[in-house]
């Protein structure tokens, strides 16, 4: 465990010092600022617009972070040969993968914490309360992003950083459209197509489960069991992807 934490802490320091992170935070800040102005133009209340914008911004910055840093992570370790300094010590490739993941997720959480802080301050200044459901939404977004980061690491374990980034974006989009795949399966008459679509439906995660933004914005109740269930679903999917990444990476010649 000490080894994983050492690698995670180094990855955290490395990503925190990465300029990409600050650019992403800048984008997030700009989006939150804009949401304050849009509130006046919308038929919805300013708080509703800000909540919607704030959560969407977190989702977007998480995705950007996963794509720009996560997808290139293993590739850059190999091209700069920094991986040699780690894996030639008594460190397994599984420890390396998990260490890199925890390091990047820590950066992601810091990123979320900063945006949330600005977001909550802005909501409070407007006289609205920070609801528990907003916290639930942030937690589920963080879990969703950990799935995306693990997917980015998985793709980067066997392909180039560019392709890994494209695959990660594809994974994100298809994960959010997974419900449509289910509808498509039911409409198909061909057994072969039904089987193919069902395969993809079960293979890809349903990322829409992590999206409770509309419920939060419209003040609809979020069952606590739902949050716990989705949280566990995300954690299991993340572990599965990390184990797959470790398997693939263990066979890779460096």
């Amino acid at each position, binding site marked *: 465990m*000490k*080894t994983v934490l*050492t*690698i995670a802490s*180094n990855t955290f*320091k*490395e990503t925190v*010092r990465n300029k990409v992170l600050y650019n992403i935070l800048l984008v997030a800040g700009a989006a939150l600022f804009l949401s304050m102005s849009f509130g006046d133009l919308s038929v919805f209340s300013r708080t509703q617009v800000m909540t919607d914008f704030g959560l969407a911004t977190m989702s977007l910055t998480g995705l950007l972070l996963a794509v720009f840093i996560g997808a290139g992570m293993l590739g850059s370790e190999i091209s*700069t*040969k*920094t991986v*040699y*300094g*780690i*894996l*030639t*010590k*008594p*460190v*397994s490739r599984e*420890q390396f993968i998990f260490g890199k993941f925890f390091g990047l997720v820590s950066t992601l959480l810091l990123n979320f914490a900063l945006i949330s802080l600005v977001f909550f301050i802005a909501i409070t200044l407007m006289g609205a309360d920070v609801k528990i459901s907003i916290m639930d939404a942030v937690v589920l977004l963080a879990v969703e992003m950990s799935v995306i980061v693990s997917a980015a690491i998985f793709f980067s374990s066997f392909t180039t950083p560019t392709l890994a980034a494209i695959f990660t974006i594809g994974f994100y989009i298809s994960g959010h459209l997974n419900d449509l795949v289910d509808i498509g399966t039911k409409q198909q008459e061909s057994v072969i197509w039904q089987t193919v679509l069902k395969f993809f439906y079960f293979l890809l995660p349903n990322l829409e489960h992590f999206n409770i933004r509309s419920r939060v914005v419209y003040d609809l109740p979020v069952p606590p069991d739902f949050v716990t269930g989705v949280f566990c679903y995300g954690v299991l999917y993340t572990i599965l992807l990390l184990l797959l990444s470790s398997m693939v990476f*263990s*066979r890779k*010649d*460096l």
Partner: protein
Amino acid sequence: MNVIELKNISKTYRKGLRARKVPAVVNLTFSVKKNRVTGFVGPNGAVKTTTIKMITGLVRQSSGTVKINGIESFNPQSRQGVSYLSEQPCFYGHLTVNEALGFAANLLGISGKRIGSEIDRVLDIVEMAEKKSVKVKELSKGMQQRINMAQALLGNPHAMVLDEPMSGMDPPGRKLFRSIFTELKKQGVTVFFSTHVLDDIEAICDDVIVLSKGELVYDGGVMDLLDTGRLGMEMVVFGTVKDEMESLNEIGCSVTEKNNNSIVFVPKDKDYKLVQHLLFSKGKSFVSVKSTSESLQDLLYHNPQKQYVEHEL
């Protein structure tokens, strides 16, 4: 006892659209003995680096076994107490020398309290103590290689695997590394290092392993290898040996004169003691008597009769 053991190792890469199999290493078997300094030589393309990567678990062999301390090399436990130094220093750009060594020390499981003193110890050895707070990427390549050596010395490893450790080093740096190797040898550390500089092999190593085109061409003692290239004895005699010239020629010796001395060369198949006795009996005295042999460079690359390696460096 052997620290590193490679048995019938082969490595095949797949190339091109049809994934054509290209053999890189062919049925390679050798071992590195404990407490000895072993050099690993061969021309470019001899797959020295690939072999070292298989030893350190970075590359997996297609067939055969690689064992370190009796454990398969892909098992991380095999690298317990074994350090590695890469040809190119590879540190994270955001770390200072102190942070980079601290990171390596943590990975080695050195306890937190000992890390500071351990870093100071290794930095003293590589004479880089004053660069502790400098970012590694701001150092020259030679200095980075010293830091690379420092990380390989962390935790007092019992064996070291080094891939061209003196690459890019200036003469003082090379001298320092040679003295580090000599000290490690005294301490009984097993050192296995690849190099193109055969002088280093002659000066430091007990054993040498020679590869050519992925195949083993020599595995044995450096002195044994040099002995195969022994030319004979060279005796420097005070004054002239004109009166003894006929007898010396009969034995098969050649004589040259230099600075009022005579240099008598006795080929290795002739008995030099006989020549010594002959010259003593004639009242001659000797300035020096030494064995002459081909250099490792000539032996491995230039002499067509005994050439081990087909390509020049």
